[in-house]
């Protein structure tokens, strides 16, 4: 009897209905179509703000931009927008704007971002600056639009550092520029090779290696004062500097104790700590954001692979298992990915690859260039800049971690190498 009753009760409870759920698991990866209409312009400013925004968004890999020539109309106010037209062109978003001259040689830039399908304004902003600041304003517009539509912070207002040299390798310049290569400024010139530039977390200092006749030495240079400070000149190798997340320490490679190992130096106290202890080559240290682990390259398994060491326990863990050469790893996508230099097998070209630490999946990101090296990741973890051989010259190129967009950084004369993407400058 109990059985009948309980079963009856149970069955009655189950009678409440759940909704039909259909699962979709496949789609097509594609960038968001957006149009940035040429801004209405009053005055004689040099830089075209909307052109910079179009280039920024296109290069981010998340958007595909409609060329102004392909636009059916170029509205300059909200009332002039015919959303049907934009839908016909398969655009999902439209940006319009105006630049007006103000007294005191200032300019005001005002823009609006519209959702074409829902026909409503998503974002509007007004920014002010001098003619020379129009570039900065343009990048800030790109940052705002990018973040609004992807949820990811834009990195268009950041800087890059890199080294240029002549083909004979007799002159070297360490330079800083906007992330799109504009407004280059030389911060150090030398007859000695400069390499491995790296930014302090606050963006105010650069550490680098200078290869003098007596050997490699590590310097830290203050970007505001231009003052340069020698940090390490031990016997043997002094190289591969990497700032700790708090900016107080530098991880380095020194071979003073017999062969290249990783050490940490406290910049204030100059106190040394040794991190690795192995007869194989250990180099290219890179701090993880927790400040507790360092990723590095080691030849201890026979050829270069990526490892991670815990600073507290000294425990070393191997991270790469595919390929004959994996080196110079940098973190991307909030530490979920590594980007590195990868050679699939002996004799194969060197490319930039990404390693998904969650899925253990290694994917090659570059294919058009060869001898790819020095990958450096944007602070929002989305783009990778690297050096590559192209038409017998070394140039800078960029690829997205999602691997779908590639572009070359407009090049100066000579060979450009060793890019280092700077941090957010708040």
């Amino acid at each position, binding site marked *: *009897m109990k*059985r*009948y*009753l309980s*079963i*009856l009760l149970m*069955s*009655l409870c*189950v*009678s*409440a*209905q*759940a*909704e*039909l*759920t*259909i*699962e*979709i*698991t*496949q*789609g*097509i*990866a*594609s*960038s*968001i179509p957006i149009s940035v209409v040429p801004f209405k312009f009053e005055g004689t400013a040099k830089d075209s703000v909307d052109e910079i925004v179009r280039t920024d968004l296109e290069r981010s*890999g*998340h958007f595909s931009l409609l060329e102004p020539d392909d636009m059916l109309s170029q509205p300059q106010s909200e009332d002039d927008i015919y959303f049907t037209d934009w839908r016909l062109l398969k655009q*999902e978003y439209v940006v319009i704007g105006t630049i007006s001259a103000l007294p005191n040689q200032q300019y005001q830039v005002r823009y609006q971002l519209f959702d074409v*399908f829902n026909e409503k304004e998503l974002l509007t902003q007004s920014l002010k600056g001098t003619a020379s600041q129009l570039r900065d304003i343009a990048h800030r517009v790109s940052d705002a639009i990018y973040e609004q*539509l*992807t*949820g*990811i912070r834009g990195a268009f207002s950041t800087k890059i550092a890199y080294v240029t040299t002549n083909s004979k390798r007799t002159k070297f310049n360490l330079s800083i520029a906007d992330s799109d290569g504009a407004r280059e400024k030389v911060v150090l010139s030398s007859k000695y090779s400069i390499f491995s530039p790296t930014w302090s977390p606050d963006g105010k200092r650069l550490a680098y290696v200078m290869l003098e006749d007596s050997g490699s030495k590590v310097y830290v240079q203050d970007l505001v004062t231009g003052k340069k400070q020698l940090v390490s000149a031990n016997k043997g190798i002094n190289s591969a500097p990497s700032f700790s997340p708090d900016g107080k320490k530098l991880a380095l490679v020194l071979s003073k104790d017999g062969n290249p190992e990783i050490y940490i130096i406290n910049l204030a106290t100059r106190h040394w700590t040794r991190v690795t202890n192995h007869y194989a080559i250990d180099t290219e240290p890179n701090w993880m954001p927790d400040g507790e682990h360092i990723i590095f390259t080691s030849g201890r398994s026979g050829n270069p692979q990526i490892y991670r060491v815990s600073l507290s326990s000294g425990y070393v863990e191997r991270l790469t298992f595919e390929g004959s050469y994996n080196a110079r790893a940098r973190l991307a*996508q909030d530490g979920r*990915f590594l980007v590195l230099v990868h050679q699939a097998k002996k004799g194969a070209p060197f490319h930039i690859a990404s390693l*998904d630490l969650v*899925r253990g999946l290694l*994917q090659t990101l570059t294919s058009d260039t060869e001898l790819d090296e020095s990958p450096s990741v944007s602070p929002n973890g*989305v783009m990778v800049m690297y050096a590559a051989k192209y038409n017998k010259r070394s140039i800078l190129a960029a690829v*997205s*971690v*999602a*691997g*779908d*967009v590639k572009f070359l950084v407009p090049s100066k004369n000579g060979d450009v190498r060793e890019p280092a993407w700077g941090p957010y400058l708040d």
Partner: protein
Amino acid sequence: MQFLPVSDPRSFSLPVIAATLIVVAILVSVSVNWIQSEVSIVKVPKHISAKIIHIDKPKPKTVKKPVKKKPSKPVVKAKKPKPKVIDKVKKPAAKPKLKDKPKPIKQAPLPLPGADLSQALEEEEALMNLNELLNEEVQARQAEKDQAAIASHASQIKALIQSVWRFPPSAQHDQVVLLRIFMVPTGEVTEVQVVESSGNGALDRSAEQAVWKVGRFPVPQDSVLFEEQFRKFLIKLKPENARL
């Protein structure tokens, strides 16, 4: 009162009959209420496994269709059909048990004329069981058809969306967005709601737009089925082929 020895089955007869009567009375009274609120439970046919469908047991048609196949024996009108689960349980296990005991008195149906009580009850029971069996079969077949229709339309909807869904490069393979779709009987989408965001706004938007791009979905002809399953339903989108 004369006490029979404990081992004698007849010593239990009266209490058992009384107990069974009480049970039956309770069951009948409770089930009457429930039947009036039109809840009935359907057994899910074992051989159907709908992978892409999450569906709860649909309400079966409470249509009293005339019995087709069973021959000869006249069908006694079952005034108060019992809840099915009880039958299910009763069918394999209960009947032998009941048969061991003296015949319980069943509900309403009049005994056939000219038979003594126990034989009438037996026949009554047999007919009712038959009736129930027939109803079950009818309902099971209907449920099968419904399931097939749902599955077919669901897979069409899935195919349509997958052919137009463009997710952004920032999409990660393990992000999931849950949408609720509202349709009218012509199949046109009237509203799309984000029930659960994936955490990636661009991905959520791309999912919504995929639904609007299709705009109109195939719907089952059975309007009852449409009302139950497709008037509003959920779509779960997960870009498993995303690079990140």
